[in-house]
């Protein structure tokens, strides 16, 4: 297991957003978290990446406890994410957004920028090349000079994934990556995520599009009102009474 989460909890005042959730993430797997609106999925992600500190519980990453670390430390450990509501650097170019993502891998900072020494120049060149390669991969290379805010919605999502990948993570957290995408784009996304797994990346994904998840995920965790109500393969989840009642059941109403 690359990540193990035990009894993770987060309250907002009296509201319990996430309650004693356990989750074990196998290395190289695609793991999905699903659930109806307000199930606490995004809060769960925010707690993992320390954007919102959790109230209690443990998160173990490659044998190391990380629930008390800052967001930048977590990022340095090899965990990257995208956001449900896209959070690109709107007034930066597409390329710059991705270069920003490479930040972790480069050491020379103030001193390097002042002296422009050999290492600094090499690193700058490397990060630029790496960023271009990633843009190539998501199909945005031609638009590298545009302001991020000028891209259409679906491409902004792709860019956010490229930026997350720029930090060369071991775990990629995707928060509703298919939201706002058309069918063709969703299919491309599915292929893309599979390709990432083939490269050895572990993916934790929140998604509303059940069809996408059922075809993609190795394992699925279902949250409802902050509580984990089921976990298993796609087939197991589809036949789980509780899930049908809480989630799929609601849809039929």
């Amino acid at each position, binding site marked *: 297991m690359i990540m193990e989460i035990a009894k993770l909890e987060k309250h907002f005042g009296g509201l319990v957003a996430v309650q004693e959730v356990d989750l074990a993430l196998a290395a190289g797997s695609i793991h999905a978290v699903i659930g109806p609106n307000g199930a606490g999925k995004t809060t769960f992600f925010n707690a993992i*990446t320390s954007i919102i500190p959790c109230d209690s519980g443990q998160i173990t990453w490659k044998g190391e406890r990380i629930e008390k670390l800052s967001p*930048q430390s977590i*990022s340095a450990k090899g965990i990257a994410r995208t956001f449900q509501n896209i959070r690109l650097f709107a*007034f*930066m170019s597409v390329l*710059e957004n991705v270069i*920003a993502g490479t930040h972790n891998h480069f050491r020379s900072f103030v001193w390097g*920028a002042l002296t422009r020494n050999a290492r600094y120049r090499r690193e700058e060149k490397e*990060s630029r090349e790496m960023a271009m390669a990633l843009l190539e991969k998501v199909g945005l290379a031609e638009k590298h000079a545009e302001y991020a805010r000028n891209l259409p919605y679906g491409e902004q999502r792709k860019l956010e994934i490229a930026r997350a990948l720029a930090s060369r993570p071991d775990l990629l957290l995707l928060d509703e990556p298919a939201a706002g995408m058309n069918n063709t784009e969703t299919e491309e996304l599915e292929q893309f995520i599979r390709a990432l797994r083939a490269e050895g990346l572990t993916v934790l994904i929140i998604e509303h599009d059940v069809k996408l998840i059922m075809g993609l995920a190795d394992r699925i965790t279902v949250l409802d009102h902050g509580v984990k109500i089921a976990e298993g393969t796609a087939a197991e989840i589809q036949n789980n009474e509780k899930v049908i009642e809480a989630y799929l059941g609601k849809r039929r109403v």
Partner: protein
Amino acid sequence: MFLQQLINGLAQGSLFALIAISFSLVWGLLRMVNFAMGEVYMLGAYAGWLVVMYATPNLGVALVAGFVIGWIVGWFIEKVAFKAMRGVPHIASLVCTIGFSFFLKELASALFRAETKSMPSYYSDTAFTFAEANISYLQIIMVVIAVVMMVLLQILFYRTKIGLAVRAVALDYRTASLMGMKVDRVTSLAFSLSGALAGFVGVLAATYYNAVNASMGFVAGLKGFTAAVFGGITSIPGAILGGYLLGAIENLSVKYMSSGYRDLVSYFILITFLLFRPNGILGKKAKL
């Protein structure tokens, strides 16, 4: 005399523009105004004065001294007024910087006594005369320094990773921290840089006006802020534009109206823009 006033305006505008950039840096990062900026400028001027009076009569060394003192004071203000106050309402930080402004001013009067100190002249000879207008070497040097500083900052922000980090933090510090950027460090760095710039300009102004005193920062700070709001406080090009325009308008208002209206014109611009166009001439689109 129109040309002479325009030249005076450009020289003074260089000073305004550089202070305005200091305001832009802090605004871009924290959406905050550091009202002690004028006092950082004043302390820089004292540092430069001390150097030329007691160490070496070298203006370059004096400018570096102003830069260093400004860096240190800027760093300190960030730690007290912003970092320590994170999480409390913005207004507390704002009031704290106003407090700093008074504190630093009184500190300087206590340390150096309140009387005006005389700063020696440098490069004050007339470089050339053009249509009855005299242009001194120092005026040329000031404009050149201002332009070079602006170019350097543009390179820093748009051609280096450190600049990318500053811009990323300015745009969205939470996301930036997820990219592994050390938000505190970047903020502190940009704050110190804005202070250093103010301290540097303080030495330049002291040389131009031949005077250093504890209360010199107040008006300078206000004019720099006005220039920033005028041009567009969200961006460095805006701050520069505002600085030069304000310098020209002020000096020409003396020519066409009366010197008594000079500050009035500036503050009228400040209030008008704050009310009707808070994003300045360049507007919202321009970003740090």
